[in-house]
């Protein structure tokens, strides 16, 4: 049976060019980039090239890139590292806690880092989102306080694909920073007093402009394996001058921010993957992906009664479909589709060990039952029109069957 992969938000296959670029660094050019001999310097050069590729993609300088072992690690570094380094202005007793603003629909890498800081005494605001999953800039403005040190809002959501107004958010933070500067007698806000803005751009990188200056962010997270690169590599952009402390200590690699011998082959892979996603061919392919997405959404909603689209219709990643079906549970749909050769995923975390319904769908105001009945289809480079037609053919039958089992209607 031909296998159809519709779970590109979970991970992507390695691009052949990426794999080819990586291979020499496993064997022939295996040197440690910290070594001063030829082997080491060759590896160091390869890493520098990858750093340049990322800098080019993000519109920043190469030294502003920190390679990490995953995007989760980059998120941890961005949040734990900056809050650790932040100076809290002198405030009345009990109010000197660092304050962090994030949203209720962040990836666990961000949410759990924030919860950890809360345990250590920080104050965290988890901004609600509207029914489409959008953060309201007005709510964010209201949440900014003198002891706010960091705002972390994802660029695009991994479950529902909602794209956040990152530019508007950065403008609001910038305005607040300007006001704050005015209150300082020297007229100059020292680093560490400025509110920093971090965005997790892991899901956005394939489709959206990630120019850090246009976005106005101080920190940005990328992952290699979501953009047709290898697993086990991530990167954090940290704007020059940003006060940040390491989370991992050791030999002082990556400007002391991420110790541990670099995953040279993986980093080379990330560099190549970033080059590839900017190629015109893939830009054109993204248009096709968007058309497939629209075909899926339109036909599912039309042909399956009791179905609803989760997330925004307009502010949505071109490859994301997230739908709920009354009377059919998400994991059951996923496993039934898998039996038909279609790989998808559920919005709920039921399969990853937790039984709770998806925190993202609950934040949209969905009932627990609807949140449990969600199905996520995320498209990518290998998908064809045939794949889409097959899904549209088998899905209604599966939903009907599961509804019979649940006694729905």
């Amino acid at each position: 049976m031909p296998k159809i992969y519709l779970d590109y938000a979970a991970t992507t296959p390695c691009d052949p060019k990426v794999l080819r670029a990586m291979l020499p660094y496993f064997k022939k050019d295996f040197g440690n980039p910290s070594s001063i001999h030829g082997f080491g310097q060759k590896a160091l050069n390869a890493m520098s090239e990858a750093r340049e590729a990322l800098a080019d993609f993000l519109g920043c300088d190469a030294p502003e890139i920190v390679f990490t072992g995953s995007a989760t690690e980059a998120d941890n570094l961005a949040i734990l590292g900056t809050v650790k380094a932040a100076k809290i202005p002198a405030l009345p007793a009990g109010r000197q806690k660092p304050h962090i603003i994030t949203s209720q629909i962040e990836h666990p890498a961000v949410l759990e880092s924030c919860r950890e800081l809360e345990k250590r005494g920080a104050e965290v605001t988890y901004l609600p989102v509207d029914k489409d999953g959008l953060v309201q800039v007005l709510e964010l403005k209201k949440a900014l306080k003198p002891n706010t040190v960091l705002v972390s809002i994802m660029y695009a959501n991994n479950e529902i694909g909602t794209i956040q107004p990152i530019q508007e958010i950065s403008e609001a933070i910038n305005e607040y920073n300007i006001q704050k500067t005015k209150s300082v007698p020297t007229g100059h806000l020292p680093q560490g007093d400025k509110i920093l803005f971090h965005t997790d751009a892991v899901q956005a990188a394939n489709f959206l402009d990630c120019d850090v200056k246009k976005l106005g962010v101080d920190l940005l997270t990328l992952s290699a394996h979501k953009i047709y690169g290898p697993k086990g590599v991530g990167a954090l952009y940290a704007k020059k001058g940003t006060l940040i402390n390491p989370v991992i200590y050791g030999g002082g690699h990556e400007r002391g921010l991420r110790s541990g011998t670099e995953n040279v082959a993986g980093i080379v892979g990330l560099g190549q993957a970033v080059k590839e996603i900017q190629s015109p061919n893939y830009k054109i392919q993204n248009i096709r992906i968007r058309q497939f997405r629209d075909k899926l959404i339109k036909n599912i909603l039309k042909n399956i009664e009791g179905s609803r689209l989760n997330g925004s219709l307009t502010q949505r990643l071109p490859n994301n479909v997230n739908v709920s079906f009354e009377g059919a549970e998400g994991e059951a749909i996923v496993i039934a589709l898998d039996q038909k050769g279609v790989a998808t995923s559920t919005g709920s975390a039921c399969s990853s060990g937790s039984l709770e319904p998806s925190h993202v769908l609950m934040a949209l105001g969905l009932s627990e039952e609807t949140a449990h009945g969600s199905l996520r289809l995320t498209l990518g480079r290998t998908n064809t029109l045939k794949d889409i037609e097959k899904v549209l053919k088998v899905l209604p039958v599966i939903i009907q069957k599961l509804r019979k089992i649940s006694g729905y209607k």
Partner: protein
Amino acid sequence: MIIEPYYSKKIIDRFLHPKNLGKIKDADGVGDTQNLRCGDLMKIYIKVDKEKEIIKDAKFETFGCGHAIAISDMICDLVKGKTFEAALKVGYEAIADEIGPIPPVKIHCARLAQAAIKAAIEDYSAHSRSPEGRQNKKPCLSAGRKK
């Protein structure tokens, strides 16, 4: 160490081809249970041999994952022909003996099915003396779920 697949072949087979799916129209007892955390709903219908107090037939309706559906189907098989006392003892081990290992995160599905059997037996006991018997139970999904 052999890692069992998340969905074993036997579970998939039961899930795709359940033998005991549906309602029993003139059921003697109906057990309705739900797991508030994972959102699963199970409804088990039993037909009872009133002389011997033995479960003659059992059927189910379940809103839940593949494991929950397969386990509901399996427990119906296992309680058939059993006395109430024996049926109440059918738990995770007995189900796993038949259907194969269940991932730890799904053990609660077996507990939910066990609770549904217990509820069905209790429902029978509560109504066995009333002249109207049992009828007009609501369908599974409208059974008191908050919106």
